[in-house]
């Protein structure tokens, strides 16, 4: 295992170094710079330019792109058409860039065709420079960071649910190259809400296929039944906790949003509940063990902490009480700790949760 870990770390650094080295070598060798990514350095489509001379009225797009415009008209994005904000934040051009050059180019071509100037039209289409200058920003050609940055211009703020996407730039999905467009589709969504490409959890399973197997276990949160969604517990846009977990409103673990009776506070709180988290004893997605416990027999779950922890050397006297000697685990009376210690999440009258 140690060799495998070492090999993985080496592979990791090698793979990370490849593009760095190759880019550096290309520069040293006088190699051409990589072509500019549309929407980042191309002046014609400077991504966030608000120069009105680069834009046209949004109705111009509808004349050619009829289907897209019809579909767009009933989506949430078309609300931007009512906005009084900057022109680069409105309609099709908010994402695809200013269309002035694009419209001029095709209007000229249409005029040539109408006037029967086929040669001029052909020459216009053959002029790569003009064609390139007239091309709109293709979102699919952008890297995940670039396409996401485009979406975040509007969506990073508190539109929709408050602070939902505040942390996208620091999210696990962003770190792993998953962009907004991997889950959302402006023009061909399968779900009208949030323009999702597919329904939850099916969309999540496309990458996280292992969770589909987990949710098939006998005890699971009601995701397959449609009662819950992955995004109820995980903030796919990035949260403040590991694994993109959400907080409850009061900063507790998300679990207490539904399991409110476990929220406390209790006079005697079982330390793992608040301090360590529910996952100390429960596995969240699915399990063959009832109550989603990490062990199928409760006493093992308890003993793995409580038979060892008191009196840790150098750590004080220890709070976890040792198992009293009358707890004969061969006796059914003591086979299950929670038969007596029933208020295991916390008690308001007994330090031993009875």
């Amino acid at each position, binding site marked *: 295992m140690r060799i495998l870990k070492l090999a993985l770390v080496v592979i*990791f650094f090698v*793979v990370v170094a490849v593009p760095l080295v190759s880019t550096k070598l290309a520069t040293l060798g006088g190699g051409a710079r990589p072509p500019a*990514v549309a929407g980042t350095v191309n002046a014609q489509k400077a991504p966030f330019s608000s120069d009105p001379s680069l834009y046209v009225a949004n109705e111009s797009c509808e004349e050619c792109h*009829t*289907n897209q415009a019809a*579909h767009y008209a*009933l989506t949430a994005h*078309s*609300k931007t058409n*009512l906005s009084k904000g900057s022109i680069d934040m409105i309609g099709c051009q908010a994402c695809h860039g200013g269309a002035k050059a694009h419209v001029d180019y095709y209007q000229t071509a249409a005029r040539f065709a109408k006037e029967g100037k086929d040669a001029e039209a052909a020459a216009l289409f053959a002029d790569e420079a003009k064609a390139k200058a007239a091309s709109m920003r293709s979102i699919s050609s952008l890297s995940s960071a*670039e396409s996401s940055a485009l979406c975040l211009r509007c969506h*990073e703020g*508190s*539109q929709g649910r*408050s602070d939902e996407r*505040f*942390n996208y730039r620091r999210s696990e999905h962003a770190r*792993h190259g998953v962009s907004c467009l991997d889950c959302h589709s402006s023009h061909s969504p399968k779900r*009208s809400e949030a323009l999702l490409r597919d329904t939850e959890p099916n969309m999540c399973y496309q*990458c*996280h*296929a*292992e969770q*589909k*197997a987990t949710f098939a*276990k006998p005890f699971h949160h009601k995701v397959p039944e*449609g009662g*819950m969604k992955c995004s109820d517990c995980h903030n796919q846009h990035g949260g*403040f906790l590991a694994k993109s977990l959400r907080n409850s409103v*009061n*900063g507790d673990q998300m679990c207490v949003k*539904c399991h*409110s009776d476990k*929220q*406390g*506070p209790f*006079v005697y*709180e079982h330390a793992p509940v608040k301090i*360590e*988290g529910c996952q100390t004893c429960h596995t969240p997605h699915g399990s063959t063990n009832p109550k989603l416990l990490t062990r*199928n027999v*409760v006493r*093992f779950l308890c*003993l793995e902490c409580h*038979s*060892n922890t008191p009196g*840790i050397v150098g*750590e004080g*006297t220890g*709070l976890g009480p040792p198992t009293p000697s*009358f707890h*004969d*685990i061969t006796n*059914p009376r003591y086979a*299950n700790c929670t*038969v*007596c210690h*029933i208020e295991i999440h916390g008690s*308001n*009258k007994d330090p031993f949760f009875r």
Partner: protein
Amino acid sequence: MNALHQTRLLPLFRSCAGVLLWVVALSLGITTLAQSSVEKSETSQQAKEPENELERAKAAVAKPNEPKIKPETGRQWGIYSTTSSIEIGHRFVDTKGSRDRYLSDVNVRDGFRVLEYSLDMRARPGTGILFDTFKADVNNAGGDVAQNFSLRMDKTRFYRFDANVRRFNYFRSLGPNFALGLRDTDIRQQVSDYSLRLFPQRAVRVNFGYGRNMATGRFAPSYSYERDAFKLPSQTRWEANDYRAGLDATWRKWDFGFESFYRGFRNDPDIRSREGRDPGYFGDSGSFVGALTFLERDTPLRSRSIVTRANVRGSIGDRLHVLLRGLHDDERMNAPYVETTAGTAFSNARIISRVLTAQGFVERPGNIVDGGVTLDINRHFSISNLTNYTHFRIEGDTLTSQTSVQQPTTGAQQTILTTTAGNRFTEWESLWNTLSLNMTYGKKFSANLGWRFMKRDIELNGLYTSRTSTSTNVTSLPLDDSESINTNAFIGGFRVRPTNRTSFMFDVETGENNNSFVRINPLEYTRFRVRAQVQATDKLGFNGTFTSLDRTNPTPQVVNDSDMRSYTVAMNWEPKSRLMLDVGYDYHDLFSTANISYFVTGSQLRTGRSLYYARMNSVFANTRFGVTDRLDLFLVYYYIMDRGAPTISVGATDLVNAYPLRRHNPEARVAYRFSNNVTGNVSYRHYSYNEREFSVQDYRSNILTTSLRFTF
């Protein structure tokens, strides 16, 4: 030889003919039966909806002088493009074996259902009078294990309203598995949330929200009384009501938010003993002579939480993005407790009356500050830092008093008074910081490297004293401990897309994490994940994932190791919109060992290991066949099998813990589209569950669901 062939072929022929007849009968039968879908698979009717959606959109945006095209489904209702559907049906359930276990696992019951209802009305933003969008959805209403009701309305620039109500049915009765406790439950839980946002597209937004979470039903908590265990048939009822109000504002590149939140929680269970004399779980045998003849418990628990949150987010220039969030939480709980019992003590004395009163009060104030900074160094590199600081304090006090009037087997009646006093103080402070460097090279490569630092300080103080009128001794138990610890972890990963159709992802996280137990050393862990996604063609995709997690606790007394490996492969083939095959296999291997000490007969101490094994195989297959233009066939199969512990030799004091079981879950569904507006469904689901060690919990169940879906 011919005769031999005939004897072999004849049963085969009969079987095929039987299957064919069954399918034909079902196809014909759906004309008279109401039918249903268990899986929400797309029928031929639903497959047409994307095309119809475009047609509806065109109709909605058509100018007055343009010809109107009527879509096949849905309608243009004034300015609204409208679609609606309803699927109603009935479930028939037949269970053999352990019905309790079936209900604990599956919990699908007989009855009428509104399997799906949907109403979607959309107008061009800003054109509606009361609303631009109205969307209502209902799923599995009428008694299924999870039911959903949702409503969304909005009027651009004026409001957005969301309502969501979910109902869950929880059933637990795992009788033979005593280790899982005596807490039988049959509970209905409802989680609902309503939110209203005013002026959603304006610079200043106002938010209001209300949430209600409640549970009612039967539950049977266990009770330890006079050395025996008693099951108390009781009713639970708790509810949490949340109210929130806040403001959001946008100014240039900055967003500001403020919200205030109040939660009130109440728990009023009705806890009583069984009628008559309850001899306890272990009866009157041996030393278990304790009995309960009367119990009534009144525990009207009340708590409240007041939360104030504020956040600010924005960009300084084009490259520096910052976020700051603060939260203050003030929680209190008041927990009175009155319990009256009568019965027999373990000493065989008759307990005439025992009254236990307790008054617990606890406060838990807390603060959280989160901060995030991202600097875009250039178009390839960015550096991010995410910080979380949490502090909370729990201060709890409780006093109990128990007056027991009892009649010993010999001698005079006694009155024994027992009082306890306890307090617990917990102070917790943590800092969690993740610094990461992210790289992006076009579409083909992205990578990240990071470092996570965690610091945690915990202080626990408390005292518990107990005094009894029959003794001059005072039992005191100090509850003091503290811990202060720093941990570090390394995170990293990369994603390579050599072509547009392939993606390889690797991520690793290794280091220490102090989330194992309180008071002991940090947990050393290494988690890595490798994922390959290959889109062989536009219609055929593969996904393979390997996940590994090794955890070790170096504390000498604990010696805890846990190794997990998970291997998953999945394939999705969808050559046509109505032909689909989605299959996968997952193998999950978990082995954990921990040193434990425990007592056996005669108070003899044993020291050994707790060994836990899970070796789970899972297969899932989801297929769809568009047999004709109108007829769809869906086949679904889930199989899980845990092989439990391998054949191993363990020490005499080692205890092996595993749960070998298997479950088959095949399902078939036939959907026939009578017209663009009506589809009939018949589905059949089967469960076959088998445990190796608790065969009394085995069950088989057959669920037939029939439904009709109307779209209009």
